[in-house]
């Protein structure tokens, strides 16, 4: 049994594939590519496959990662075979065998997103003002209830990185991982609430980086 970390991108229509569906998709793709996954023991064996950070439905990414246990050593041809076995929109773009102890999936702390917003022009200065607020309170829905909470501590960086014909592009670094997780949609909702004249008509979210505690990429 050898543990590998795979890096992959999710784009195009495949962004609508949910987290749970993606796990099933990968285990079938490994089968099609003849890569023998290690299965758990027991009554209902399942492949040992862990996705680093769930990606919301509708979000694209170039930096996803998962840890997979395999029964034999992998070669480059295996990755080619796997890529041929994946549907359009999911592509393996990295592989590493020896995963440093400081880069466990549980060490994931931050994610960087690029958000393309369709909206009327807004003064970029307003976004700096937004970040200088003492607090950013929004309604956050959990499974059981909706509560007011301050999301500012989980916004680590936010800036306008480009102006487009029909709106603008933002980058934001947010808390991610097992201890705290903030979704970019909620940041947009907050900005809509606090930034006057900012009314997104549509937006596309793309995850650009997943970072560890030490601010290092996972792959």
């Amino acid at each position, binding site marked *: 049994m050898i543990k590998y970390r795979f890096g992959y991108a999710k784009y195009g229509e495949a962004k*609508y*594939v*949910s987290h749970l*569906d993606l796990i*099933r998709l990968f285990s*079938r793709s490994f*089968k*099609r590519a003849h890569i023998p996954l290690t299965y758990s023991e027991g009554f209902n064996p399942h492949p040992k496959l862990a996705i680093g950070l769930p990606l919301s*439905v509708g979000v694209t990414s170039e930096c996803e990662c998962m840890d997979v246990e395999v029964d034999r050593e992998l070669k480059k041809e295996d990755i080619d075979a796997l890529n041929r*076995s994946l549907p359009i929109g999911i592509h393996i773009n990295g592989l590493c065998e020896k995963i440093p102890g400081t880069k466990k999936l549980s060490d994931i702390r931050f994610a960087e997103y690029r958000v393309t917003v369709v909206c009327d022009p807004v003064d970029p200065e307003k976004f700096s003002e937004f970040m200088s607020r003492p607090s950013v309170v929004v309604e956050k829905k959990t499974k059981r209830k909706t509560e007011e909470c301050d999301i500012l501590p989980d916004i680590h960086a936010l800036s306008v990185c480009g102006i487009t014909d029909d709106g603008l592009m933002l980058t934001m670094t947010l808390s991610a991982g097992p201890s705290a997780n903030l979704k970019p949609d909620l940041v947009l909702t907050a900005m809509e609430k606090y930034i006057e004249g900012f009314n997104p008509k549509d937006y596309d979210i793309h995850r650009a980086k997943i970072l560890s505690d030490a601010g290092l990429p996972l792959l």
Partner: protein
Amino acid sequence: MELSKILKEVQKPARYIGTEYNSVHKDLADVYIRFAFCFPDVYEVGMSHLGIKILYHLLNNEPDIYCERVFAPWTDMEEKMRAHNIPLFSLETRTCVSDFDVVGFTLQYEMSYSNIINMLDLSGIPALASDRGEDMPFVYAGGPCAYNPEPLSDVMDFFMIGESEEQIIEVMNAYRTWKKSGEPKIKFLESLLSIRGIYVPRFYDVSYNEDGTICEMVPNHPHAPTRVKKQIIRDMDACFYPETMIVPYMEIIHDRITLELFRGCIRGCRFCQAGMIYRPVRKRSPKRLLELAEKLIESTGYEEISMSSLSTSDYPELQELTEGLLDLTVQKKINLSLPSLRIDNFSLDLMQKVQKVRKSGLTFAPEAGSQRLRDVINKGVNEDDLIRSVSLAFAGGYSGVKLYFMIGLPTETDEDVKQIAHLAHKVVQAYRDTPKEKRNKGLRVTVSASSFVPKPFTPFQWAPQDDIETLRDKQHLIKDEIRDKAISYNYHEAKLSVLEGVFARGDRRLARVLLRAQKLGVRFDAWQECFQYDLWMEAFRQEGIDPNFYNHRERSYDEILPWDIIDPGVTKEFLMRENEKAKRGEVTNNCRKLCSGCGIKQFEEGDFCD
């Protein structure tokens, strides 16, 4: 852009994306015929259907044909599509359905008919064939419900009756020729008249008697056959079967490889339409099935494979096949999922070997509570068989049993109905009679009662259907008779069966009701949470059509039935004979024991029955 925006706002957007593994993507420049395969229900239901898997790959094997899939959008998606003026589109290329050459619907259950009208409406295609101009696609239907095509005959340009694997290629050839000719649409429909199994409703005129029954149904075209003979596949091993299947992103109802063992059924249950219309029995060989299984496992990566047929226990080489499949699935580390089998030592042993089956539930379908009524419906099961089977199962460690029954069967009395509860009690007793050290704890007996709907081409096609009140009384009668906490009881909404009955045995005049009901807002009638009985009744009222005319009348043998236009191979004489035997409570042997002379042997040259 609009579509990508609404996909973010709907539930389960994976229903609408169409880039699944093994989906077919062609260069449109190489395509001459564009075919939209429409399933009138939501994605996860439609994708579970075997017919679509077969025909999708069969058609796409033709280089100049591109078959794409279309499903009914769920209500949230439909709302957004209508709000943004997005027409119904195919999954593969997102082409509007009205831009296709041929639009085919599969008719799997009557309760999907309103979705057909709604899908045409969403596509901007007029629902009535007579309203569609030269610029509109041909719209046709096939599948089991097409054996009574009449309720949809004003909607469809034509129907394909019977098994399509060879027929659809003939139709496509005719289409190619017609398209090259540049002639008006009617010429294509005329050219179809020489193909077996094609019914073109506009080439027939129907007149009615004063009492509303059919007076005459006659061809108005010199080449239209007086009866349309169904098409069948003669050699199942040689017949096309896909070696690959689309692997959906989302979980669908039957999320596994399906191996079709055989068509037809030797049993001859008198309520069962499938058992009549799919005759004769024709099987694939174990060798062919194992070869297909291996290829499908390779090409899909699925973790489960299942066997499909009307009665898998009747597959003659079941042992050889299951042994082969077990070897294969162990080697490939996937699961073999078993259909419900007749319980005996062989099947229990098999279930033991297939570890995936949890020892919780086994399903039995006695269909009727009393022996008298089981003889009436020719369900060749007696109480001793059932008790022996459940006792074997209990001793083998199973503690859950599901029992399926129907209520509203012909000749049924209150006593027959009460016997359903009594039979369930006897099953409980069989559990208590099983030694404690052998049986598992936690007995659960589930009794499920569905409402019988008489279907065309069955011996009960002339029978009256119970009305809602009678069905409800019977449902409660069972409830009152059940006196054991280990038994749980459920039944279906009786109102659903009214509509199923009307469209199962209806005629041409019903198209008006369908169109009206769609305008009033009915959708997804097979889904309890969507079914709107009152809207349907309003549609009947507005169109001046009485649903009781179709359901509650006993039809006489000399009445002309709307589906008489179709020749399914079994003769009317056979069905009458069976109906008379039913009234006398006489059983008919299964086909392997003794040929019952249903007519199928004369229907097709050569002896076909396996």
